[in-house]
């Protein structure tokens, strides 16, 4: 069996007799005469089993029990009591003794007490093993899942990109056809059309690569306290000519009493520009009602000291299916004209600011995007702490 057992008794006779029978039962027996000596032996040997008398001069059995349990909560301690020590026996059980045996000691009864203590030790050991294994298993499976999810996301992104490239390649094949036929049949209109189509496809490749770069750039934000109206005013100035060209009603509204906001103005500029370009594209889509379309930009204070940007259009709006896909890489409602990267990168910028990007839309009702930024030094609700606080 090869198990260490510490026997503590101040009576030499008992130590001798019990040592013999315990050694015979297969234990490696260590003895101590007092509680203090017992602790010293325990620290050296670290036995799993301790058999101790309750009544001893100096440190008694109960105190020894407490100190042993403090050193190792798993140690099994069996108390030896005299007749009439039933109160002490109960007290020891309350202090988590494994069992007690009464003097004079019956070998069979001691044998049963020791066997039960061993079983408990064994059970605890196995339980701990299972738990550790289970934890390892969970950790391993979690790692596998995370890996699989990353692969799936990368696969989805790659598939989306392949689709975008395939469309552009298809467009270029169309150009080749037109240019070839134009040269062969000497038809100027084919040459002109092929040439226009070539330019538009080159533009698409440029947009795609720029948007990809924009999205994958590990952005280092340089936030500072600024007037939050600044980036929106710049974007409005930039896009006003395009709105006029489309005949779209274009408005910028700046609420009074705007607090300063902690943000990276260049990053916010890019984020808002995506939203405003989308709003104008949505209006442009409906050629008949384009003239009655309206794009509204607002910046206003939020409760709690934060700031909210609103970009609203009265374009055709989106159904729930499109809304679900909205932030998916390479998904675009603009057909071949969109890269499907703009909104994803806008959201990334907002989240890096500890904020949230929300959308409201319904078919025929137009679309509104809301950029909510927390007050300086406050983390927004729902921010899971994955981004640095700014």
């Amino acid at each position: 069996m090869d198990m260490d057992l510490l026997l503590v008794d101040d009576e030499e006779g008992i130590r001798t007799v019990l040592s013999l029978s315990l050694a015979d039962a297969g234990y490696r027996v260590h003895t101590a005469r007092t509680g203090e000596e017992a602790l010293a032996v325990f620290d050296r040997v670290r036995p799993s089993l301790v058999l101790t008398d309750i009544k001893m001069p100096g440190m008694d059995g109960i105190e020894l029990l407490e100190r042993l349990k403090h050193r190792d909560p798993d140690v099994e301690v069996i108390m030896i009591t005299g007749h009439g020590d039933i109160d002490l026996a109960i007290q020891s059980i309350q202090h988590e003794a494994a069992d007690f045996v009464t003097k004079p000691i019956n070998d069979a009864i001691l044998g049963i007490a020791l066997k039960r203590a061993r079983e408990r030790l064994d059970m605890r050991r196995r339980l701990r093993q299972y738990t550790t294994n289970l934890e390892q298993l969970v950790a391993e499976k979690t790692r596998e899942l995370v890996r699989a999810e990353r692969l799936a996301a990368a696969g989805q992104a790659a598939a989306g990109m392949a689709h975008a490239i395939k469309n552009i390649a298809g467009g270029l094949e169309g150009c080749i056809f037109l240019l070839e036929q134009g040269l062969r049949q000497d038809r100027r209109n084919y040459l002109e059309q092929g040439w226009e189509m070539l330019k538009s496809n080159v533009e698409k490749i440029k947009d795609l690569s720029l948007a990809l770069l924009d999205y994958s750039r590990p952005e280092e934000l340089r936030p500072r306290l600024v007037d939050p109206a600044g980036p929106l005013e710049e974007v409005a100035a930039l896009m006003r000519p395009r709105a006029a060209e489309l005949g779209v009603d274009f408005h910028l509204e700046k609420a009074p009493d705007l607090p300063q906001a902690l943000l990276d103005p260049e990053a916010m500029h890019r984020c808002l520009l995506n939203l405003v370009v989308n709003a104008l594209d949505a209006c442009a889509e409906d050629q008949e009602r384009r003239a009655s379309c309206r794009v509204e930009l607002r910046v206003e204070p939020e409760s709690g000291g934060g700031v909210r940007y609103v970009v609203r259009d009265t374009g055709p709006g989106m159904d729930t299916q499109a809304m679900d896909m909205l932030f998916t890489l390479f998904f675009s409602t603009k057909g071949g004209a969109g890269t499907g990267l703009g909104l994803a990168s806008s959201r990334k910028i907002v989240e890096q600011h500890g904020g949230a990007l929300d959308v409201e839309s319904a078919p025929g009702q137009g679309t509104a995007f809301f950029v909510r930024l927390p007050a300086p030094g406050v983390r927004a609700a729902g921010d899971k702490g994955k981004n640095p606080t700014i």
Partner: protein
Amino acid sequence: MQKTVLVVDDEMHLRIFIGAVFETAGFKPVLARDGEDGLNKARAQKPDLVSLDLMMPGEGGIRMFRELKADPKLKDVPVMIVSAVGGPTFEHALETLRAATGGPLPGPGAYVEKPPKPEALLAAAARLLDNG
């Protein structure tokens, strides 16, 4: 006699390209930029063949397909679907439409995946017109 093909696609470059493919093969192309425009031109010109995109703003290509098939004068004009929407997805949409309207609705004569290759467009056209 020169056959007329109605090319319906919201993307201008693709419309011009598909039109040119048919023109160089001896067809007379008529271009339309959405389903409504397409239906008007189909009724006015009664083409021999329709090349139809599915995903278009406004009513979309499925609506136009259904109206063509419901029009006694146009229901026998062969239609080829030219779309990035997969064939099975379109079949599913047709099933749904059949269930919703309760009426019979034939499938398209041909299906060409976007971006279309000139040979694929012309092969589909030849097959559809032979059958007609």
